[in-house]
């Protein structure tokens, strides 16, 4: 392998990795708040992108994306109110199974609503062929959008959870729901809010990656599985860990591809299994920290 090739694999890994990271962050928000792993997260991406594509026929692109984020966030909140909230005293596992069911139903609803057609949003800047050359390797402009949006989301979330009252209240719920309730925090709405937030972020992610990856009704689940793997590797609930793990998995896949592309998918799942068995707290989290969270 010569230098431009290495750069190209690295670039491919980083593009894919930042997509995975952005999905994983969606998982983390809900997990941090409720201990639930939301399997419908991948579907939020596709709903977001599909809505944006439909809206973009009548609205300018930024407005269409904003509309899609809003619609998907509302959908996320609605799903929580209708399907998660009524399940009282439920084990986390039961709620996870509910989200698996939701992901299936949303996916099939999209098939009947939007059909099986492959669609995609236009490139935000330039076109499919405009690239920037870095170290001899071409990089699409959209990749910078993906990276940039991931970075902005991580930064905004960190600020939100650290410095706003709502953000702190959500963290309080995550740590100890009963104690939070005693402090006067409306813990139910915090859970709803976490669903809205992660659905909205998912929709934004779906829109940003749509020009690169295209959008089809059944692409949510594979993305969700990758995002989930990344979330586990990075340590559930840890957004910075998710970014690091996303890039790690993306690069790993890219360099595995350079050797054998046939089992690329299996490799990432083997990593997941190994992590689950030997270090369920994730690679980037100190195990004592996550041991506190016994959800």
């Amino acid at each position, binding site marked *: *392998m010569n230098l431009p*090739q290495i750069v*190209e*694999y690295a*670039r*491919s*890994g980083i*593009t*894919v990795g930042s*997509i995975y990271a952005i999905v994983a962050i969606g998982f983390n928000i809900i997990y941090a708040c409720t201990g639930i792993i939301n399997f419908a997260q991948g579907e939020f991406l596709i709903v977001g992108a599909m809505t944006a594509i439909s809206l973009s026929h009548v609205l300018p692109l930024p407005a269409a994306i904003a509309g899609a984020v809003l619609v998907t966030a509302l959908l996320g909140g609605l799903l929580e109110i209708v399907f998660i909230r009524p399940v009282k005293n439920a084990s986390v596992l039961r709620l996870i199974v509910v989200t698996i069911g939701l992901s299936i139903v949303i996916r*099939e609803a999209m*098939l*009947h*609503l939007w*059909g*099986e*057609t*492959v*669609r*995609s949003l*236009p*490139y935000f800047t330039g*076109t*499919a*062929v405009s*690239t920037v*050359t870095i170290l001899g*390797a*071409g*990089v*699409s402009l959209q990749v910078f959008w993906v990276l940039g949006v991931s970075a902005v989301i991580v930064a905004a979330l960190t600020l939100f959870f650290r410095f706003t009252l709502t953000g702190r209240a959500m963290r309080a719920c995550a740590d100890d729901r009963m104690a939070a309730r005693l402090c006067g925090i409306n813990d139910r709405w915090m859970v709803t809010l976490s669903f809205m937030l992660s659905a909205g972020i998912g929709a934004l992610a779906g829109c940003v*990656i749509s020009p*690169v*990856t*295209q959008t*089809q009704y*059944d*692409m949510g689940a*594979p*993305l969700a599985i990758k995002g989930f793997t990344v979330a586990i590797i990075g340590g559930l609930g840890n957004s910075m860990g998710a970014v690091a793990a996303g890039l790690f998995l993306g690069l790993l*896949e*890219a360099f595995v*591809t*350079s050797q054998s*592309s*046939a089992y*690329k*998918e299996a490799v990432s799942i083997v990593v997941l299994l190994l992590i689950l068995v030997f270090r369920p707290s994730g690679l980037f989290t100190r195990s004592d920290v996550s041991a506190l969270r016994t959800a």
Partner: protein
Amino acid sequence: MRTKALETLSLCLAGILLAGSGCKKTPTPAPQKKAEAPSGKAAPAPPVKSTAQGEPIKVGAIFAVTGGAANLGGPEAKTAEMFVEKLNGAGGINGRPIQLVIKDSATTPTQAVSLAKQLIEEDKVLAIIGPSTSGETMAIKNICQEGKTILLSCAAAETIVNPVASYVFKTPQKDSDAARRILQTMKDAGITKVGVVTSNDGFGIAGGDQLKALKDEYGITIAAIEAYDAKETDLTGVLTKVKGAEVQAVINWSVVPAQALIAKNMKQIGFNVPLFQSHGFGNIRYVQAGGEATNGTIFPCGRLLVADALPADNPQKKLLVDYKSSYETRYKEDASTFGGHAYDALLLLTEAIKKAGSTDTDKVRDALENLKGVVGTGGIFNLSAADHNGLDQNAFEILTVVDGKFAVYQKK
């Protein structure tokens, strides 16, 4: 024991409830998407509209309306529905309407097996159209052969008609012919070293095998061959590997949406060699999804996609323009070659029934084997006892993409 009785009763109740709820959900969601939701029961054209009065001829159809191959099964189901409605509206075959029973296989061979057995043993259909994929077709090939029911597959693999099973036919063009056309075009353009990428499904792998088998005849070497997953979202890794092999052109062979990524990703990594696609590229959506990057892609394809650009004396022109415009008016989406495969399957069947003058399975089968010069969407069919496909290299036209539209490729 009384508990048991109670349990049994409640089970029955639950079963009825569930069955009921399942059925209630079956009605179609939107009128224009009718074919997307074939219910469990027959969904033929309304008999009122039909002018054909005779006893209906039962024909089954198994398409992957949902699941991994929904992008094939969707247009096929819609086309089949449209074809039958039009045929029955025009008086059917010798005054007898066709009753089409469409079933969704969900791209699962086991489901296809179950549905094929139903169609053969219960509905006693004359013929089965479909399934959409090679895996499903191979799963029911023997069942149809033993059940003495004609199978007109819409899947591409050559193993479907080789070895020949006397009741099994297929309408899509042969992979080997597509490979030959691609390799010939390359040879003419002076290309000798190529990289091949395929999807890791039946279609892609069969295509890759054909290219490997035929390359020497055209003096072409394959420097790299890679497979990718149907749900892939980024293919730059695979392409970087191919680029590293310093090839003069790339051949991509797949029917999955990911193939539109190939063109984009090649441009993104500055991999500027000619891109050849297989006939699986035959859907304008892939050009739309791939955007500007797909300009200049060269691929062999049936003439459906360039129907309007064909000279007026082309024997296929009238049929293609008719099919394309009626499909596009009715379903508000672009026609694809997959729908064409279903069209051809029904066309061959109706021609054979007319020719046989009977709906006796064996007579229709014999008539099918002797059909000559039938003009379909995929080409001109000349079937025989040894060739249950009936298309040759001439079924393909070499096309290219100019400004986001398909056009006939002109040798430079």
